[in-house]
């Protein structure tokens, strides 16, 4: 006769290593690297879970666990559920079917954990509309509810609502970035519409920050738009950028790029930077002190005749779309903490040949800005570079 379900469970529990919540708590507070895996259903997870735990409902274990906890078969994994039953079955699966060698099930589950008075984290609960709106994010293990919550709490500043800023703003709005700051002092012009897709023909003459706000809120009313109808300069930069988590740089001139670099290094804000010309684009992420800064890459700007702007030289209308969306992707990765951001790497895209080239960018140990203590970067130093006056005069 086949064994009953209860007998199977009993047998599996006798074969699986079971640990007490007190031991799990002690290991976690020692900072010893263990992965805690919650295998309950999404509703149970939302009602409260152990801080730092990863979540894969038991029904998706085989298909999603590697993305959630990694492929290292020797790492210590402690699984929990409500009472210790489903976690034992999941531990059995992880060990015997998937080859994770060092797996245990937490006895008594989160119920016993809570009874002992240990900490439980209750995630932000999305409204039913938000759950539906962001459902395709919630299904991706690298984002999920945790990542979506980070996006909803994130503050991202866009420098320019132009070629690069347009697609970036639209997709970050759609992704549910909670606060989008937009800095632009310009009005929508007919010649912008070949590439600046956030603006529309009937908004020609409207300030770009207002036009961008209309488009952003049209896509996603969750987003709070903060408008700065001004040009970023030394007098206002510290005030404007302070408090933002990530800055998207699509400015059209070198003095502002250096100024932005110096101010963000001082405040420790990562910058997702792109530039475009003709059919060529460049992209990199400058995360202060984790990687090089803009000055490490370009210690001095080129002379004005070698530094044309798009306004003067033209650009394929699609190109800022391509580069802007690569920027938006890097922003989401930085906010969510997923993947390998483009730090210390420069990506070159050449649209006519359809080629990507990746170059290494090293920190300059003698960089005048990022090699010194951020608090020592004086306000009078921000954005200064050799021959600044001459450069700006030549650039007009």
């Amino acid at each position, binding site marked *: 006769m086949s064994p009953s379900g209860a007998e199977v469970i009993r047998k599996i529990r006798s074969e699986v290593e079971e640990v007490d919540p007190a031991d799990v708590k002690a290991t976690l507070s020692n900072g010893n690297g263990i992965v805690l895996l919650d295998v309950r259903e999404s509703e149970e997870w939302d009602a409260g879970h152990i801080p730092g735990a990863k979540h894969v409902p038991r029904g998706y274990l085989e298909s999603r666990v590697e993305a959630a906890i990694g492929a290292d078969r020797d790492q210590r994994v402690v699984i929990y559920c409500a009472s210790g039953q489903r976690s034992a079955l999941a531990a059995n699966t992880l060990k015997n079917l998937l080859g994770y060698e060092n797996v245990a099930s937490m006895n008594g589950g989160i119920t016993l954990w809570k009874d002992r008075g240990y900490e439980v984290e209750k995630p932000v609960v999305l409204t039913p509309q938000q759950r539906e709106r962001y459902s395709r994010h919630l299904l991706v293990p690298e984002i999920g509810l945790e990542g979506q919550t980070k996006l909803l709490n994130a503050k991202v500043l866009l*420098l*320019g*609502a*132009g*070629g*690069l*800023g347009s697609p970036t703003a639209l997709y970050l709005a759609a992704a549910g970035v909670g606060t989008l700051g937009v800095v*632009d002092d310009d009005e929508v012009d007919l010649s912008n519409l070949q590439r600046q897709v956030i603006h529309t023909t009937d908004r020609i003459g409207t300030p770009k920050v207002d036009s961008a706000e209309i488009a952003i809120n049209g896509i996603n009313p969750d987003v709070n738009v903060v408008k700065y109808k001004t040009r970023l300069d030394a007098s206002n930069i510290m005030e404007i950028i302070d408090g933002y988590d990530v800055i998207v*740089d*699509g*400015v*059209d*001139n*070198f003095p502002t*790029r250096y100024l932005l670099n110096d101010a963000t290094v001082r405040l420790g804000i990562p910058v997702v930077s*792109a*530039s*475009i*010309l*003709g*059919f*060529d684009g*460049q992209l990199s992420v400058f995360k202060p002190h984790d990687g090089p800064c803009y000055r490490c*890459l*370009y*210690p*001095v*700007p*080129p*002379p004005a005749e*070698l*530094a*044309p*702007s*798009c*306004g003067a*030289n033209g*650009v394929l209308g699609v190109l*800022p779309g391509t580069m802007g969306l690569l920027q938006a992707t890097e922003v989401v990765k930085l906010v969510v903490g997923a993947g390998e951001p483009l730090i210390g790497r*420069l990506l*070159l895209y*050449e649209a*006519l*040949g359809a080629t990507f*080239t*990746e*170059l*290494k*960018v*090293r920190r300059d140990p003698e960089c005048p800005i990022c090699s010194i203590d951020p608090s020592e970067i004086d306000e009078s130093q921000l954005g200064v570079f050799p021959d600044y006056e001459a450069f700006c005069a030549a650039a007009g």
Partner: protein
Amino acid sequence: MATIKIPPVLRPSVGGEKEVQAEGGDVGAVLRALAEQHPATQQQLFGADGSLNRYVNVYLNDEDVRVLDGLDTAVGETDTLVILPAMAGGAF
């Protein structure tokens, strides 16, 4: 012969090409050969004293020659040099 990738701002100086070939055993020799073939690049790449302009980055394959041996870095037949001046276009 090494391949040199030419950035957009220098393409008018090399007849519009995106890539050109030049001979040379090290980075300096290859770039000087480029400047000889296409004299318009001379002033854009080199200062009056013959040193590489500071605003021009040069990569051997994917590595900045500043962290290698600069202009003395050896170049093989199948290597690619990337010349990269900064670009600033964006919001416009």
